[in-house]
């Protein structure tokens, strides 16, 4: 509903040779301040910062692998309810009022591979924020009346999400491409699955999830390790401990092209193609990611700049246990756009990035990487996601790894992973006739 800002696309990188301008060599970025330690058996990842905002996230491993399709959305709902439906020490209203007073932001969320309860607040009121955060983690009570109110909001959010074309097309694509895996159902659930859940279901689910062997804590902000350790010792001394076996994923390999369509009466059409991608722990991960950056820049150059077929073309790759890359476009001429997308992709797979083009891409990466480091919440998000994928150090080492990538590695990675495409189309039916034949 925001009418204030009308955004351009950002961060574009081209595969063309740059001019002879000499770019100063960027020094290798190694963030040495992040540390990891255990407190009472709970893994903690900590990065001190100089900014006034502190971000804390308690992660729970597993995500969709923790529940069956018939319970889709239960983890997301339970984690939201943990922060919104009362704790032993405070009623839901008192909890919210205390958070309100100091602009303390506490919330829960779940994605395909993990869930978390997060806290953001200014350093000056960290004690107040921490007090609420640790109670949301250790003693949520899931008041039934509050759960029912939250359920109404969750149902509305699911319905609203379906009407956002960008959100819908990605979810539809993932569900279709990963059929038969835990990614085939939405982490936020559906109307059907959410409607069945009540406070008791959430409570039972949450207290099984509460197991320090599947949990870890990530903190970034203006606080010392000593202060933090003291707080963790006090708050999480009695976390339950039970055996935890991480899920094993069988990532489907896309062979040949397939398409899914959903008719929508929109002013423009939305189209995307999902591709296989390497996991973060793979040596192919960084070269592939750089290759997808190049693909994004090329799509922009062709679809927007050269042929003015789209305002928002691009590509990205994800960090997931079952990772994927996606190229996307919104256009009133889907046939021509699809033809160009395929052409750009094929040409990129057959070519090799120029040294200058790669150098510029790396330079752009350094900028966006530092931009993320300005924000405590981004820092905890990056570290947490990397830890879920196997090691928080992946996030720390990323700048160095990117600096060492070669054009040949990029070409090999793209060719190794990109074979079949899983197309998704949202829009005018008539304009899609024969589109994917």
């Amino acid at each position, binding site marked *: 509903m925001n009418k204030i*800002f009308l955004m351009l696309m950002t961060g574009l990188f081209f595969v063309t040779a740059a001019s002879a301008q000499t770019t100063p060599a960027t020094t290798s970025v190694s963030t040495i301040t992040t540390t990891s330690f255990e407190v009472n058996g709970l893994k903690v990842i900590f990065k001190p910062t100089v900014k006034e905002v502190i971000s804390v996230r308690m992660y729970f491993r597993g995500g969709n692998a923790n529940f069956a399709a018939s319970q889709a959305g239960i983890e997301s709902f339970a984690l939201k309810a943990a922060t919104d439906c009362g704790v032993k020490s405070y009623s839901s209203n008192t909890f919210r009022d205390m958070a309100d007073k100091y602009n303390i932001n506490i919330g829960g969320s779940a994605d395909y591979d993990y869930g978390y309860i997060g806290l953001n607040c200014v350093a000056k009121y960290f004690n107040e924020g921490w007090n609420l955060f640790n109670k949301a983690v250790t003693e949520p009570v899931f008041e039934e009346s509050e759960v029912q109110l939250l359920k*109404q909001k969750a149902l509305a959010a699911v319905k609203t999400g379906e*009407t956002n074309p960008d959100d819908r097309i990605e979810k539809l694509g993932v569900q279709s491409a990963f059929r038969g895996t835990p990614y085939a159902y939405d982490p936020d659930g559906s109307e059907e699955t959410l409607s069945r859940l009540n406070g008791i279901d959430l409570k039972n689910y949450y207290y099984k999830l509460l197991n320090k062997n599947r949990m870890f804590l990530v903190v970034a902000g203006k606080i010392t390790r000593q202060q933090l350790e003291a707080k963790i010792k006090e708050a999480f001394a009695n976390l339950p401990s039970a055996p935890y076996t991480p899920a094993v994923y069988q990532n489907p390999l896309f062979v040949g092209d397939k398409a899914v369509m959903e008719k929508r009466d929109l002013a423009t059409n939305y189209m995307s193609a999902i591709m296989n991608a390497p996991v973060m722990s793979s040596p192919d991960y960084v070269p592939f990611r750089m290759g997808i950056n190049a693909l994004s820049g090329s799509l922009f150059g062709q679809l927007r700049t050269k042929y003015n077929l789209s*305002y928002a073309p691009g590509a990205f790759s994800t960090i997931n246990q079952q990772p994927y890359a996606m190229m996307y476009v919104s256009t009133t001429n889907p046939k021509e756009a699809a033809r160009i997308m395929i052409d750009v992709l094929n040409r990129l797979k057959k070519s090799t990035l120029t040294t200058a083009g790669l150098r510029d891409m790396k*330079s752009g990466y350094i900028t966006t990487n530092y931009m993320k480091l*300005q924000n405590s919440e981004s820092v905890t998000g990056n570290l947490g996601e990397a830890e879920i994928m196997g090691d928080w150090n992946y996030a720390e080492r990323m700048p160095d790894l990117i600096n060492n990538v070669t054009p040949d590695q990029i070409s090999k990675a793209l060719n190794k992973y990109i074979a079949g495409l899983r197309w998704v189309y949202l829009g005018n039916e008539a304009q899609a006739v024969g589109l994917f034949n």
Partner: protein
Amino acid sequence: MTKKLLALLYLLITVAGLHAQSKLPSNIFFKKLPNGLDVLVVEDNSVPLATIMLTSKNGSYTETPQFNGLSHLYEHMFFKANKDYKSQEEFMDRVSELGIDFNGTTSYENVDYYFTLPKFNLKAGLKFMNSAIRYPKFDAQEMARENVVVDGEFQRKESSPGYALNEAMDHHLWGDLYSRKNTIGNHDVIRNAVPAQMDSIKNKYYYPNNCLLTIAGDVLHNDVFKQVEMIYGSWPASGFDPFKKWPIPEFKPLTKVDNFYVVSNLTQVPVLEIDWLGPDTRTDIPATYAADVFSYILNQNASKFSQSLVQSGLALQANIGYLTLSHVGPITLFVVPNPTKVKECLAEVKRQVAMFDAEDYVTNEQIETAKLKLGIRQTEEQEVTSDFVKVLSFWWASASIDYFTTYQENLSKVTRADMQTYVRKYIKNKPYCAGLLVNSQLQSQVPADFKPAN
């Protein structure tokens, strides 16, 4: 979410004879060049980056219907050919070489352009910005292509569930001056735009005496001021005030309550929006402070407003916000009614509005909490320097930097009586526009006084 909350902005005022430097925080520095260019430097050495943002007082408020959407198109043309970079491809190559993350935004009263780049490229970045802002080429072929791209952006906007209500509300609220509050513009105007129109915008608004240049990040203000003077000092002033030469027309007061409803099958939930014409920074600065404190009270969980609407189960979401502008900021009450209780929810909203000025509607504790929260919010806004420049730009355009620096101080003075004055002057028993967005299945829930359909 209200426009206010979504925009992350709120505040401001006129730019007459201010001495911002005397009240600026210790890491922010201000200088006005002889040609009238305002320059702000924000020192923050937490990461080795610099952000350069150029802001012009331009945007939809300057647009007649014939120019509706062209401030935004101009913003797109900035990132294309200019005197020093012969084509968009050359421009983009330079973006890549300098490791730039860039963007532009067009809003009601300001247009921003920014580059964030490694600090060692600051000088090159300042020169690059100078080429783009002072010497755009408006190449006819590039522009013809971009017209279609901008129209594509418009189509994406139209594909979002909330668009139909926003569009209808703007027509109802602003009447003949709709174009002055419609940043995305008009399809025909955009599709048929020509370079001469871009020249016209440049010759009215793109002068140093109508712009702010902000440099923020791991920089030293004295060095930056020197570089800026060297590069931008030769930019000639216009010799006129564009807002005296081409005054922004005054928005007419609403004359009656205007209820309407909009049917769009893009929405899955009903949405109610009620808008009043609020204060502005040219005519009623005290009311802008009262508006912010009042909004922050009502949006608290403990407020009567939240308890009676959200905690009661009548609404899934209820917020109120005021958008601080120099030319009539709207007061927006945004509610997502429980789909099974639309009529009851609407009745409760009306009941609450009628009590807004009651002596016991807000508690002393809620007033203090609101002020505290607004102060914390200011701290949070400064966390990400590359974003903070956008907030500063907004304040500068719609009010002044001084408004920002004295904001906390002025909030702390707001009393219950000030808020009652604000409510009685702008909200209670005042004409408003109320729009209800429903899909075809929810049409039966529309109350009689919202019919006929828009």
